[in-house]
Every structure is written in C-alpha cells, then in structure tokens.
C-alpha cells in the first residue's frame, strides 16, 4: 500500500510539471507537424523525411501558418480541408474510422474476458 501511495504521489508530481513545459520552439513544432504529414508525391514518406519540392514547400506553408498564429490543430485541419484525409498520418475519429480505433481495444477486452474465464470461471 505504501508503494501505491508513493506511486500516486510521484505520478501527480510528474504530470504537474510536464504541463508547464509545452513551450516548444517554432522549429521543433514545424518538425513535429511535418512528421505527421504525408508527402503526397512520394512513396510512403512524411514531408519531414522527404526532400521533394512538394515537401519543401509544405514545410514552408506550415511555418508560415504558425507565424500567422494558427495552432497545431488548426494547421492539421487546414491541410485536411485542402488535401483530404490522405495527408495526415493520424486518422480522424469519425464514422468511417471508428472501427480502426475501437477494434483493437475491443479485441483486447474480448481477449481479457476469455483469459478471465479460463483462469477463474471454468470448472473442471
């Protein structure tokens, strides 16, 4: 129990002071966003990884949008509006993709239920 208490205290400490640390520099933010944006003319590369003209100009667009004061999320939305869902590596949660997000977790729960049944319920 003591360990549990200690654990909870530490977790709270950790979460508290990670919050104060979201001041990333602009370049880092550009890189972070670039990693989640697909280069549309390449084979499976992000615009961060690719050196194509498309990627270079996209990185400039992101930088410009950040300077205009858009947030990270607004930039993703802007790009998705312009180029469609294909451009982002993080699929939205909507009625076409909820299976994608929910299914693994559902399988995990079902697996857990089978395991629980095998260990505790099944009679011999």
């Amino acid at each position, binding site marked *: 129990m003591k*360990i549990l208490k*200690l*654990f909870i205290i*530490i*977790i709270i*400490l*950790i*979460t508290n*002071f*990670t919050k*104060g*640390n*979201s001041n*990333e520099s602009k*370049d880092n933010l550009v*890189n972070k966003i670039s*990693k*989640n944006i*697909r280069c549309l003319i*390449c*084979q*499976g*590369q*992000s615009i*961060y*990884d690719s*050196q194509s*003209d498309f990627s*270079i100009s996209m990185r400039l667009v992101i930088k410009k949008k950040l300077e205009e004061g858009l947030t990270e999320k607004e930039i993703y939305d802007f790009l998705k509006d312009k180029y*469609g*869902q*294909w*451009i*982002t*590596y*993080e*699929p939205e949660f909507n009625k*076409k*993709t909820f*299976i*994608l*997000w929910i*299914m*693994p*977790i559902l*399988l*995990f729960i079902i*697996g*857990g239920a089978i*395991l629980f049944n*095998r*260990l*505790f319920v*099944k009679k*011999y």
Partner: protein
Amino acid sequence: MLANQIGYYSLILGLISSIIIIPISLKNYPQNNETINRKIISLSFFQFFFVLVSFIGLVFSFINSDFGNETVYNNSHTTKPLFYKISGTWGNHEGSLLLWLLVLTFFIFLFLVKSKSQPKKYRILTLLFQQIIIIGFFIFVLKTSNPFNYLFPTPKEGLGLNPILQDPALAIHPPILYLGFVGSSVVFSSSLAAVVQGYISKSWANHIKIWILISWFFLTIGILLGSIWAYYELGWGGFWFWDPVENVSLMPWLSLTALLHCILVLEKKTILTSWTITLSISTFVLSVSGTFLVRSGILNSVHTFANDPERGLFILFFLFFLIFLALIVFFVFHKNGNHETVKINFLSKETSILINNWFMMYFLSVVLIGTLYPIFLEVLTNEKISVGPPFYNKLILPFLVPFLIFMTFVPYLRWIKSEYNKIKIDIILLFILSFIVSFLLFKQFGFESLMISILIPFTFYLFLITAKDLLSKNKKNFSQKVSHFGFSFLVLSILLNSIFSSEIIINLKEGETFSFQGGAIKFHSLEENNGKNYKSIIGNFEIYDDKNQSIKLMPELRIYNQPSIVTSEADIKTTLFYDKFLVMNSVKNNEYFNVRYQLKSFMIWIWISTLILALGGFLSFTKRLYEK
C-alpha cells in the same frame, strides 16, 4: 547463357521431385514399419540440390552480367561492384522468390534428417504439407515470376540495381528474414501434421520448439538489419517508421513471439493445444500475407520496388487455399478432449505466459488493423486515409505500461503454483530507485509527453529488475533472462532516444558557419569523387560542441549512372552515448545545401539491445543442441 539454361531446367527438375515425392510418401504412409523410406529423404535432398543449382545458375548469370536473362537485365549493370552483383540476385522479385524456394526445400530436408526420433507418420505428413507449400511456390515462380526469361536480341547493358539497395546491410537482410519466414512454414506444416496424428503433446512441443527458436532468431535479426539500413541509408535518422512494409515483418514476429512463449507451457503440460496450433498457423499465414502485400503493390510504401497485379492475385489465392486447408485440418482432426484438464492457478507461470500472449495479440491486432484498414476502406468507400506513427503510438504506448509492470513479476512465478513470496526488500529499493532516477531526469530536462513520462520509470524499473536477474548466480532459464534483459534495454533505449535526440535543419553554402545553442556547424568545402558506378559530391563539415571540440563529418551526394538516381549518404559518428548524424541535400537551382544535423542519443544501444534479445533465442537453441 549456359548458366541460365541449367538454372531453368534445374528448377523444373525441382518441381518434378515434388511430384515424385508425394505418391511415394503416400504409399509409405500406411506401411507399418518404423522408418521413413530412404528414397523420400534422398528425393528431398535432390529437390534441394536442384533448387540450389538453379539458384547458383542465377548467381552466375548475375556475376557474368548475362543480359540475355531478363531478371539480370532489369536489375544489374556491368559497372556494379561484384558484391552487389551477387546480392542483386535476391534484391529483386524473381530472385527473392527463388531464394524462398531454396530455403523451403533446404528446411524440409533438414527437418527430415533432424526428426528421426519422431513418429514416422507425423514426419511424412509434415513433409506432405510442406510439399503443398513448395509446389505452390514452384508454380508461382515458374508461372508469374520466372527468373530465367530470355531476352532476344541480347541487350548490351543492364538497367542497374536501385542504388539505395546497394548496401551491405540490405544485401544480407532479405536472406536472413526469409530464413525466419520459411522457418515458420516448417512450424505450420508440422503443427498440421501433429493435429492429424493427434500428436500435439509435450514431446511434440519439445521437438518443434527448436524450429520456432530458429525462425524467431532469424526474424529478429532480419528486422534489425532492415531497421539499421533504414537508419543510415534512407537518410532521415529514424529507425522505425511504422511503414506498412515494416509492419508486415513485425506481424509474424509478434505472433511468433507469442508462440514461443506458448510452446514453453505445452512443453510442461498438455494444455493450450488449440491456441498453440492457432498461433502456428497464424504466424505462417502472416508471413505469406506479408509477401502478398509487398509484392502485389497494394501497399503504398517506401519499400515497394516491384509490383504486378497477376502476382498479387496468385498469392492471394494461394493464401486463401492455405488458410482453408489449415481450417479443415483443424476442425476435422483436432480433438479438444485429449488434453489434461488442469486448472491454471492464478499465480503461476502459465498465467504469466497467457498474459504475455494476450498483450502480444493486442499489439498484433493494432498493427494488423492499422495496416489493413486503409486498404479495405479504400476498396469499399474509395476514401483514402493514412495510418501512421501517431496512431500506433496512441494505441500501443498506453498498453506498454501494464505490460512492462507485468514483466517485472514474471521471474518470481513458478510453474503450476506460486505462493505469495515475501517481497524482497531489494525489489522495493529498485522500484524507488527507478522513480528517483526518472524524477531527476524530468527535473533536468522536462518532457512534453505525459505518456513517455509515465513509461520512463516503469521501463527503468524493468531494466533494473531484468539486469539483476541476469547477474544473479542462479543460471536457470539463462536464455530467457538474456532475452528479457535485451527487451527491457531496447524499450529503455528507444525511450531515451526519443527524448534526448535533437536536430537542426538549415540551408548552408560552402564556407558558411551556423552557430546554435551549444555548438556550431561549419561547412568547409565541397569535393568531387568518382566511385565505381557513381560520381559523388562530398561535403566537408566540422561540428563544434559546447566545449569547442570539433569532429569532421563528410556526408555525400551520390549520382549513380545506372539507373541515374541521386542518393544522399549520411555521415554518422557513433559513440557510446550518441550518434552525430549529418546529411545534406542539394537545393534546386541554388548554391545552398539543405543540411540536417541530428544528435541521436543512445542509438547504438537500440541495435545492441536487439542483438541481446536475439542472443537469448540463440542461446536457448544452442543449449538444446548441446543437450542432445
């Protein structure tokens, strides 16, 4: 030309061997003698021999640059270094399938020779199932991907091998990976044979474990090599991109890792039989689906080099056939009643292995669904989505926390039943220590991601626990301890790498210096150089750190002549604590170069820890050979 002819006819002889082996085996099967007809083993050897001759024929065609052969023409060039002429043999679709066949026939021959202590009928059935797979691949190679097609008139020069494939790590990556994939086919055939014979038992588990270990070891090393290659050759400084083709090699690995744990239970007690068979089947099916997805060109991936719909369709058909066959065998022959009805105690090793499997299956389902869902969505609704790193991070990282915690308990559980052991004081001390260390890290650096902040202390804890076990005097289950230590070390290295790595991207021209917080990059000069089949521009850079010490880095831009492709070769200085990674790219119509400098922390430990992980499997394997 001659080598080409010999190769082709030898391949056909290989197929004919299959056709002869099957009736002889069927005739031998019901006979009551204890041993397999010697003819079968000789034929199996000849089959391997024919495919080997065929393969060597192709290698010779490549070495001699025989452009009358279409495969050589498409993938080789006279100016290519000899080493890459040879590795070019399997660096393409046709050749890589021939390699599949070579390993398939070699493994089944090895299986026959090494399984003498096993029941005869089981051995023959394994051979038969394996021959079905082999015939499938023979037809596939001969019909859709013949490596010995003629070209007439003979072209003077070949088209060359994609330069990014001209690399030592990638030269040996496919063969190693295939050893893993094909090893799982032996496990597949053998488990089907064992089901038919009602032979799913402790002794079967004991015997097939060695094949599981072989596959697992090679698959692990194969994935590692691919990852190392991506790190320095694709030139971005990452080592895992959650690219579909990478995922496709990870899926059989996850399934096989689950099977490897599961077989340990079956070795001790006849339980979990259906589950073991399911995993044996799924591992191989995932390996073949991987080949299908990569070769059919369905996946949009950086690794897709060859694709052709006809090939895709064939593999898809073959895949469904294999699944269908496996299901029929499973439902007709498998009797669930013949295993021991033992209650599994909650605090036993069996439970821990089941929990391991539970998580492995979860990780597998995330990767599987993440890879396949976009394909299905596009077919059904014509809508394209991309599933990339953010998806996998979100679904995998949170589940890693309980998985790591659970792994710390494992060494303290015994088979059948464990009592609540008095929890030892040093374990608590390690627990506190790992939190203190993590806390100091946070205090010093502060991380942005909550998930990583939570993962760090638990990973540290698991690392300390597994290190303690590894160093303990008790050498029981030593190979397991090595692998578990390797795994925790790997997770730790990946986490530290993701936290501490930093990078600078700038445009520089010759003679310029860029200063940043804690150092400077100086672009001294450019020089030109001529390689055997490329020209290169080498940049002379000097990187200063905060103590004003400097190192030289010389990234390269290579302009290959055939095919004419520009690649950028990173220059990497590796030390124990970090890699200094520098890559440059030309900016169009400009004297400036786009320079990307990265400080990658603990990079070398990611490779070393994966090697340790694989080493555990290797130790377990050699120990068994030694005991026999």
